């Protein structure tokens, strides 16, 4: 990506305008109606989620379509899917911060926000899918009168720690980055309420030189940590499968395969949100077509890498010559759930090819549609990886099948509410785009310009 040289932001805007424009979003919220409609819809979904969870906890996981052999399905595969989406937020923010890619600054804030709640949605699934969720705390080491401890060799145990770490670090990273902007918002606020709100949250940030110095150190350090964290987290998620002996899971390529897939789906969702927000809040001057163009390229790149994973998986199976592995590949391509496999291929990679064309990348509509199809495609892929491996494992006699029930769907759809409600609240209450960093970029560009 060569964007770091070419100007990413229109220069004909002053620092002050940018500040006001961004800080005004919470203070004098535009598009109240659309926001309210969105919120109330999300609330509906959230209610659906709550109801489903109550039923789930009172009746048991039997209300899902699970069985032996397919005793993991929606819960786990949506867990992987949501977590994957979350990763892009961190990647965009952290990786590009380190690489000094200015274009990131217009995207990182809501990308990080998106991460937070995607991770929440992901994190809640392992709890829901427990047979006896009220004993969740047994997964944590505490001085029990039983004298028994968690089993630290279990990939599931690893995941709990990974996800919680990831959530905490994401929150910290997000908040540290937010503090100066909260300060800016505070100083724009006129109503007492807003002043106190931002005043407390900004912790009295005053932009002192020494504060900036330490802030930058901390922020860059967090970014530096976030990148390996993302990679490790999704590698561990993949170990949840790779550590089992089941054909189609027991594969060396899984960690890489999962991380790439995660970034792929995540960037797609970032693109979707970027497009929505920039039109919602009229931020075309900050989230420019160039941003979309870059997102498109990233999407294309990660997509192709994921595709490599598909190819290699098949090669792997036949190279190993292991009868069960080959059987599984066959079941995926031609089995009862072949639609998930081919669905994944089509939604992930066919439409994606549009992005070879610049005009397609720069057209919000096209990019949005492609991103949507990628999100769907990756969802199908997770479904495929889980179900097609389990429904026919080793012994022919234990072959089974799986059909999601109403409750499978209701909880999955409900998680959209769980994601959207807090997300909408955040973009309502906080600056959606990093103010200080944007200004920094803007100033640098103007400086470059003026010096010739």
């Amino acid at each position, binding site marked *: 990506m060569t964007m770091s040289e070419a100007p990413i932001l229109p220069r004909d805007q002053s620092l002050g305008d940018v500040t006001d424009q961004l800080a005004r979003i919470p203070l004098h919220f535009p598009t109240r109606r659309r926001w309210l409609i969105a919120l109330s819809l999300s609330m509906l979904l959230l209610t659906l989620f709550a109801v489903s969870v109550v039923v789930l906890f009172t009746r048991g996981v039997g209300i899902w379509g699970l069985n032996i052999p397919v005793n993991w399905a929606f819960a786990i595969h949506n867990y992987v899917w949501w977590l994957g989406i979350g990763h892009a937020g961190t990647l965009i923010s952290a990786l590009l911060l380190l690489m000094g890619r200015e274009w990131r600054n217009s995207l990182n804030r809501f990308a990080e926000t998106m991460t937070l709640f995607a991770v929440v949605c992901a994190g809640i699934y392992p709890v829901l899918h427990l047979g006896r969720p009220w004993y969740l705390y047994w997964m944590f080491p505490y001085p029990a009168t039983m004298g028994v*401890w968690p089993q630290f060799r279990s990939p599931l145990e690893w995941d709990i720690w990974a996800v919680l770490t990831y959530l905490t670090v994401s929150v910290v990273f997000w908040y540290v980055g937010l503090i100066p902007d909260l300060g800016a918002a505070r100083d724009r606020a006129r109503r007492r309420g807003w002043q106190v709100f931002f005043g407390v949250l900004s912790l009295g940030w005053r932009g002192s*030189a*020494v504060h900036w110095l*330490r802030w930058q150190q901390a922020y860059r*350090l967090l970014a530096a*940590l976030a990148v390996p964290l993302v990679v490790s987290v999704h590698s561990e998620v993949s170990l949840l499968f790779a550590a089992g002996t089941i054909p189609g899971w027991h594969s060396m390529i899984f960690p890489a395969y999962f991380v790439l897939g995660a970034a792929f789906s995540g960037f797609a969702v970032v693109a979707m949100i970027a497009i929505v927000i920039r039109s919602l809040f009229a931020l075309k001057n900050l989230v420019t077509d160039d941003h979309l163009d870059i997102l498109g390229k990233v999407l294309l790149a990660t997509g192709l890498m994921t595709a490599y994973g598909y190819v290699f998986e098949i090669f792997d199976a036949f190279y190993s010559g292991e009868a069960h592995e080959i059987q599984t590949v066959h079941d995926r391509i031609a089995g009862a759930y072949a639609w998930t496999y081919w669905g994944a291929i089509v939604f992930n990679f066919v439409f994606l090819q549009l992005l070879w064309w610049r005009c397609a990348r720069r057209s919000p509509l096209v990019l949005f549609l492609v991103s949507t199809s990628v999100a769907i495609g990756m969802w199908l892929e997770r479904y495929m990886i889980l179900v097609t491996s389990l429904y026919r494992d080793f012994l022919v006699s234990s072959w089974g099948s799986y059909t999601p029930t109403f409750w499978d769907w209701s909880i999955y759809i409900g998680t959209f509410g769980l994601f959207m409600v807090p997300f909408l609240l955040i973009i309502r209450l906080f600056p959606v785009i990093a103010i*200080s960093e944007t200004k920094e970029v803007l100033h640098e560009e103007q400086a470059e310009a003026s010096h010739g």
Partner: protein
Amino acid sequence: MAEPRAYGLLAEFDTPEALLDAARRAREDGYRDLDAFTPFPVHGLAEVLDIRDTRVLWLGLAGGVFGFALALLMQVGANWSYPLDVGGRPVYALSAFAVIAFELTVLFAALFPAIGMLALNGLPRLNYPVFAASHFHLASRDRFFLCVRAGDARFDPEQTAQYLGRIGARTVELVPA
């Protein structure tokens, strides 16, 4: 007549370049107890004001070491307290413990500097003298402030104010303590 106790003088500039220039000159002219307030980190400002502090980074290292040790201790300890045969794996399966060890390393390597940064910056600090300055709200918008604190040896409300004016300050304001 009694001097009103002051926090310092706040000089307002339009651009980071102006601020840098002023700060440099102020240092040359012997002012030491300086600070600046800017809407975004200004390159080179720390050098000019001669601020050096890497403790945040060291905190990161400390956090990492702490997290790593904690993780190993926790996992080895649990298996030492009740050793169980799990799938024929060794009781102290370090390769398996590595994962959580890594996670906690990252966790604390992130928490320590984050919290440390706030602590060293003396945040949260909701009430602070400079907030009283009439133009200070622009410090988070598009103005750049140089502050000569009252603690400075050469600080004198009138002279310093005029001095700041001379080196290009747009406005100069005395901030009460």
